[in-house]
């Protein structure tokens, strides 16, 4: 009896602990591939994870998948690296996966929170983990303005990867129906407003679409009017200046006169792609998606540079991403470097530009028959984007620890100013003082 009981009790205990260990076991798995040496081995490839938000947008996904596949099939196969793309909507999965102790090697990272990730997410500087001579050679062919954007305190924490400026997309058919010439696009905000009113009046469709929650273009609107976001030592917000308020007030006229397409950024883009909006300011990263939906809908896409305020030179901000890396061994660093070299090299940018729509940060490719010349000739929109590159201002990098909070306050204030009766100046001033308080606590 005793023995049976002891045995049963032991079995029950065993079952309990087994169940526990099974559950707790899930979190710890760390896959690094079978290679344990320090050199890459094609026979025993090293696995690298690449967290990419482009993989979550229907218009960018095929291009990004192709880019990863192409690497795996060529350089990856030859050198022994396998890159696994992980779709990361809203750029939040990489954070929670790092928190959970998962392997996160390369992150397609936004610009405005790079400082934050450097402090908190274990992002490594390129100079510290990759061979110096190769690094210099690789950077030299790239657009220097873009490379500098990812440098903090003289070190590269993010290498410019996908890069675009916002441009004014135009639905040619709606333009013509409204009696406008898509080949002579509006250049200033006043002209855009007039055209939008004409489109609404003649066609009944919304004239212009730029969502208040666009994530990045807003800063360019403020910069274009000579405004700024933060003071030079990043201790105070400055967007509620006279120029800032003026710029947002102009934008608000689209809403008050009822010619603006309403909704979130993706809703406005969907509306434009469905042929229901005359003009739309959006990143060129959506170019391939917009082109194909225009073709399906039977209308033609035209494009123009971001509108200006009167005679002032427009100052669009760059959107897009850089590549941030977190190698956990020398071997991993070597594997990651192979991927970085490929995707920001000649082949990489050819795929990125022609299949997704981002800028080739190796601008010489646009004139090279072997790479992008024929594509650029066919799509003059890409030229508009490349031309704007010289006016581009970097998107605001908020001080570490405050980025998400400050940016949310800013965006919420912009949304409230534009879409409600709230006074623009009052709303922005209030948001500015809230942000100042947070910055002062740092």
């Amino acid at each position, binding site marked *: *009896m*005793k*023995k*049976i*009981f002891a*045995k049963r*009790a032991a079995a*029950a*205990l065993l*079952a*309990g*602990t087994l*169940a*526990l260990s099974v*559950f707790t076991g899930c979190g710890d798995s760390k896959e690094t591939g079978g290679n344990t040496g320090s050199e890459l081995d094609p026979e025993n490839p090293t696995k690298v994870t690449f967290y990419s938000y482009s993989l979550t947008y229907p218009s960018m996904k095929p291009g990004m998948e192709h880019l990863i596949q192409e690497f795996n099939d060529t350089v990856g196969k030859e050198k022994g690296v396998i890159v696994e793309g992980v779709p990361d909507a*809203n750029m*939040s999965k990489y*954070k*929670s996966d*790092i*928190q959970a*102790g998962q392997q996160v090697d390369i992150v397609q990272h936004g610009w405005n929170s790079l400082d*934050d990730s450097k402090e*908190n*997410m*274990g992002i490594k500087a390129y100079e510290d983990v990759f061979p110096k001579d190769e690094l210099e050679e690789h950077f030299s062919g790239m657009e220097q303005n873009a490379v500098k954007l990812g440098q903090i305190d003289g070190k590269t924490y993010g290498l410019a990867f996908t890069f675009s400026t916002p441009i004014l997309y135009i639905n040619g058919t709606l333009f013509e129906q409204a009696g406008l010439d898509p080949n002579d696009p509006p250049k200033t905000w006043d002209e855009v407003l007039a055209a939008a009113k004409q489109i609404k009046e003649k066609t009944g469709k*919304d004239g212009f679409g730029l*969502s*208040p*929650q666009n994530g990045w273009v807003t800063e360019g609107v403020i910069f274009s009017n000579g405004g700024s976001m933060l003071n030079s030592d990043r201790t105070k917000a400055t967007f509620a200046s006279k120029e800032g308020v003026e710029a947002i007030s102009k934008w608000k006229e689209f809403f008050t006169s*009822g010619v603006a*397409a*309403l*909704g*979130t950024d993706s*809703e406005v883009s*969907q*509306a434009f792609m*469905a042929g*229901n*909006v005359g003009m739309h300011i959006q990143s060129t990263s959506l170019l391939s998606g917009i082109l194909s939906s225009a073709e399906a809908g039977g209308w033609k896409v035209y494009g123009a540079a971001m509108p200006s305020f009167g005679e002032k030179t427009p100052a669009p901000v760059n959107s897009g991403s850089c590549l941030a890396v977190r190698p956990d061994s020398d071997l991993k660093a070597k594997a990651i470097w192979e991927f970085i070299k490929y995707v920001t090299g000649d082949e990489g940018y050819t795929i990125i530009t022609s299949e997704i729509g981002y800028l080739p940060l190796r601008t010489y490719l646009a004139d090279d028959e072997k790479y992008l010349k024929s594509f650029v000739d066919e799509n003059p929109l890409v030229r508009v984007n490349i031309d704007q590159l010289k006016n581009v201002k970097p998107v605001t990098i908020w001080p570490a620890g405050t980025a*998400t*909070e400050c940016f*949310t*306050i800013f*965006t*919420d*204030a912009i*949304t*409230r100013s534009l*879409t*409600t009766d709230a006074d623009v100046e009052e709303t922005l001033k209030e948001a500015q003082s*809230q942000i100042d308080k947070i910055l002062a606590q740092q």
Partner: protein
Amino acid sequence: MKTAAMTAPPGAVSHKKISLAKLKPYLFMLPAVALIGFWVYKPLCQTLGLAGYKWSMVPGTTPEFVGLQNFTKLFSNKDFWPAVKNTLFYTLGLLPFSIVLPLFIAAATQTVRGRAQKVYRALFFVPMIMAPVAVSVIFQWLLHPTNGLVNKLLIDLGIIEQGIAFFSNETFSRLMILLITGWKMIGFSTLMFSAAISGVNREYYESAKLDGASNIRQFFTITLPLLSPTVMLMVMMSVLFASQWTFAYIDVLSQGGPYGSSTNIYYMMYKFGFSDMNVGLSAAAAALFFIVFGLIALVMMRLSKKYAFYDN
């Protein structure tokens, strides 16, 4: 083994054996208790502890003790009080969908017999088993400001002139999230109530009919009182889980916007923890609401004891 145990002399029953026998039920409980302790109470204590720290949860970083700073930060966050109000809005707003409508649907379909009853119930239950994200995307299409079916219908009927951006509008954003959550909830509650009604003794209805009671009278004097335990249970579930059930729709459809007007406390906690990378703040909010909702649960259990009527 068995034979060995069977052949043991009867005199072997000792003190030791008795104490072991006493221990036996506890040993059987041990796995369950250990699992609950590990999965429920350990995280709970950890959460309370984390509320005093500033930490990003990234492996290799150490939490920094900040005392009650997280709570002051929480109360001064611009979205905190709107989120509390919205939590209340979602909680109260969900009651008609989790109690009133299902109760009537269950009572009304009770007299339907055979296959028709199954079809009816299946129709109501299907929304419940659909994946929340898929549901969100479908509603996003339906409610699209310019391309959506709902706006087209409203414009064609002459009710509105310009499409409504449902998820960028302070009034509609919350309302739509509530309606979608409610639509999904109806099925579950209906099923619970139907099951409860099936358990009610048919003789009551027969004698009520003989006395000439109308259907409505039967519902209020027989069905409702006899269902009171189930109703109380569903009220409690609805109140305690309303915030969680709205989470997926907030995340996919409005991300708490416009300007934080549709967020609730659960979504806020998620944002603090996994977007702002401030687990301490998230834990502070969690601790606060653990206390508030704990109190609510206690009160409801008391009420349930007082008002629920059991037919023995």
